[in-house]
């Protein structure tokens, strides 16, 4: 067996999986022989219009209007999908392919409170009442509802109600600094603000409310703030909100005054603006991206049902917060009939194994984590199998590169489970490369390219790794950017670099066997002595050394050196390690031997931590600014803005 194979599918899965079922459906409908994955993927790209049309039918989404044309052209930039189709995003998620009212919908977990299960029936009833309450408040098509919200059932219910009656939803999680939330919402221009509130703790002051007031006072478009959460009607909250900048009221009494009787969910156009998301700030000022209802729904259904084989017996937990696209991705899993787990709290609330305990207690079948979580777990010597993870059948990871050693750790700790390293992003509210229940898992690789996406690796004329592009239109491209009436920003973001192709900004290596290895962001590329070097090429090598906790490589301007730049490697050492000359040499030798002499960093510097954005993504952009003596342009998007000064000090010392 190939030593890189970490997991092989049960041969029976090909016939019992939803992917297998849909593949056979396509065979019957088209008369094409689609016996292998390669055949099927090739079909899905070559005849992507037929693929999406058949998938819409097969998925059972209720629509009105003719599904013709499926796509207005084959131009990746301008084509529109299903211009004559109307649907309800909310109805599809609440229905969950018709799952019974008694089935669990959401298992709500939070720090300091016992888990609570919300059934499908309760969720359906609640969202209907909330939709009526919001309608009574004037929310409808054209409204923009912003959430400063926690990851819990209240947020999901109000978001589904808002988008169900035609509003557009955008949220920031509690981790986002007030000014960063203002920066995002100023562009979004919300009409309504939904605020998760908790009774201020005696030892914590009213900081969350002060933060919310700071945001609300800076949004002139706001007409009303609505409070959600178990404490929304508490006396202490009411007092704190007495001088709020706008009308402000708890949503619960308005909700409870409404009937939960039958509700005819209105159908909206396929491209109706559903969500506004903001890019993480990893690569520049956050882009304000609007995703459409139909594209989001179909892409998520495709990823969940075909690539993840999620269904009514599954329970998904993904480590996320409301502002990250993985929140939207997670919520969409309701449409498959699966239940989801929410968790509002620290991943170390009950020690480093908090998430494993949560997965065990809530019987999670599909667990979504991140490479930084894996690295954290490795450093704490946690043993997940000390918890009962018998229900777990799938592990997913996204956010940054899941390196070989991360695959190995997961494999060693969890045994023979498929590991889906999924990658795409906010820009497409989905994935270009991801998992597949019918294919092996190779160490360090995503199993396959997403169905109906013509993903290619394009060589750059400057040399260096290939860049990921997509050559055909797909439904989950942004329908617009905010403040971009003529589409210039959208064009510049994806299409200006290579006309006729979506250039995603990731480096990728596509394997002949159909798998893919993402190599990092193209905009983090270093050009040293005229050679383009992807940071991931050397970071993976350095992080495999036992002394190194984490590493990041960035280019530093060096006018006196050939090419005008050199590589600076920032390293976080494991406890007790010291960066002496011997370790510096070991690092450089490992890079030279594992990559090339051109990849060897000129400077190796120990830092207390690496800069990460509020979404938990490592920010090479911030590090690049710091090592070049600049204040990070995305300072407000960093989890620890004070870290910049500490890294600068480390650079001066060494």
């Amino acid at each position, binding site marked *: 067996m190939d030593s890189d194979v970490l997991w092989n599918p049960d041969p029976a899965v090909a016939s019992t999986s939803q992917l297998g079922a849909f593949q056979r459906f396509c065979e019957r409908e088209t008369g094409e022989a689609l016996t292998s994955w390669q055949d099927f993927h090739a079909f899905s790209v070559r005849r992507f219009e037929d693929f999406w049309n058949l998938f819409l039918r097969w998925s059972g989404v209720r629509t009105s209007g003719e599904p013709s044309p499926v796509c207005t052209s084959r131009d990746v930039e301008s084509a529109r999908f299903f211009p004559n189709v109307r649907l309800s995003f909310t109805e599809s998620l609440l229905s969950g392919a018709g799952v019974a009212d008694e089935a669990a919908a959401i298992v709500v977990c939070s720090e300091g409170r016992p888990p609570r299960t919300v059934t499908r029936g309760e969720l359906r009833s609640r969202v209907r009442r909330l939709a009526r309450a919001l309608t009574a408040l004037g929310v409808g098509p054209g409204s923009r509802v912003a959430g400063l919200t926690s990851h819990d059932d209240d947020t999901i219910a109000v978001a589904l109600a808002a988008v169900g009656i035609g509003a557009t939803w955008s949220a920031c999680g509690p981790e986002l600094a007030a000014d960063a939330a203002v920066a995002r919402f100023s562009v979004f221009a919300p009409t309504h603000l939904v605020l998760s509130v908790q009774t201020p703790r005696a030892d914590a002051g009213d900081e969350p409310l002060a933060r919310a007031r700071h945001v609300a006072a800076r949004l002139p478009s706001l007409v009303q703030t609505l409070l959600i959460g178990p404490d929304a009607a508490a006396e202490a909250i009411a007092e704190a909100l007495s001088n709020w900048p706008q009308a402000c009221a708890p949503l619960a009494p308005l909700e409870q005054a409404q009937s939960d009787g039958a509700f005819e969910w209105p159908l909206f156009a396929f491209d109706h603006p559903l969500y506004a998301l903001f890019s993480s700030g990893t690569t520049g000022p956050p882009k304000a991206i609007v995703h459409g209802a139909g594209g989001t729904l179909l892409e998520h259904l495709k990823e969940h049902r075909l690539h993840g084989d999620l269904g009514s017996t599954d329970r998904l937990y993904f480590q996320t917060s409301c502002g990250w696209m993985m929140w939207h991705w997670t919520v969409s899993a309701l449409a498959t009939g699966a239940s989801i787990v929410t968790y509002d709290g620290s991943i170390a609330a009950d020690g480093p194994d908090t998430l494993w305990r949560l997965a065990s207690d809530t019987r999670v079948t599909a667990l979504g984590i991140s490479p930084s979580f894996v690295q954290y777990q490795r450093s704490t010597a946690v043993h997940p199998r000390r918890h009962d993870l018998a229900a777990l059948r799938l592990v997913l990871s996204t956010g940054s590169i899941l390196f070989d050693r991360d695959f190995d750790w997961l494999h060693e700790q969890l045994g023979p489970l498929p590991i889906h390293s999924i990658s795409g992003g906010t820009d497409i509210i989905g994935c270009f490369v991801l998992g597949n229940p019918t294919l092996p898992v190779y160490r360090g690789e995503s199993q396959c390219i997403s169905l109906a996406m013509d993903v290619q690796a394009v060589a750059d004329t400057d040399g260096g790794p290939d860049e990921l592009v997509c050559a055909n239109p797909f439904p989950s491209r942004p329908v617009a950017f905010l403040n971009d009436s003529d589409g210039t920003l959208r064009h510049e973001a994806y299409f200006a670099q290579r006309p006729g192709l979506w250039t995603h900004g990731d480096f990728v290596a596509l394997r002949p066997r159909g798998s893919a290895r993402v190599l990092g962001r193209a905009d983090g590329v270093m050009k040293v002595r005229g050679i383009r070097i992807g940071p991931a090429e050397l970071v993976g090598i350095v992080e495999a050394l036992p002394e190194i906790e984490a590493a990041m490589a960035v280019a530093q301007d060096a006018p006196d050196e*050939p090419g005008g730049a050199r590589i600076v490697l920032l390293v976080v050492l494991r406890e007790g390690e010291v960066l002496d000359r011997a370790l510096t*040499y*070991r690092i*450089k030798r490992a890079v*030279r031997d594992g990559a090339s002499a051109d990849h060897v960093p000129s400077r190796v510097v120990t830092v207390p931590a690496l800069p990460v954005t509020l979404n938990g993504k490592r920010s090479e952009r911030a590090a690049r600014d710091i090592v070049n003596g600049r204040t990070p342009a995305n300072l407000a998007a960093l989890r620890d803005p004070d870290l910049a000064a500490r890294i600068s000090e480390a650079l001066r010392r060494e």
Partner: protein
Amino acid sequence: MHSDAELRHVIVEWLDDQYHFGDASSLIKSDEQSFLDTGVLTSLGFVQLVLFLEGKLHIVIERGALTRENFDGMGKILAFVRACRLR
């Protein structure tokens, strides 16, 4: 003023810092060994070494004198630097 032994140490340390990361001593088996032929240094590396030595020792090395006969090996470098200082 550096002795030959001190200068040898400075060069080996520079080779380690720049190219060989602790392996330079084991790569240089004799004073007569060619650096170019045995991969101890490339031609670009020689230029960088010259710049380093000029800065470190406060000497000027004429670029026209940078030939294999004068510079390609530890023994030749030591002799060449010694001669530069005497001038």
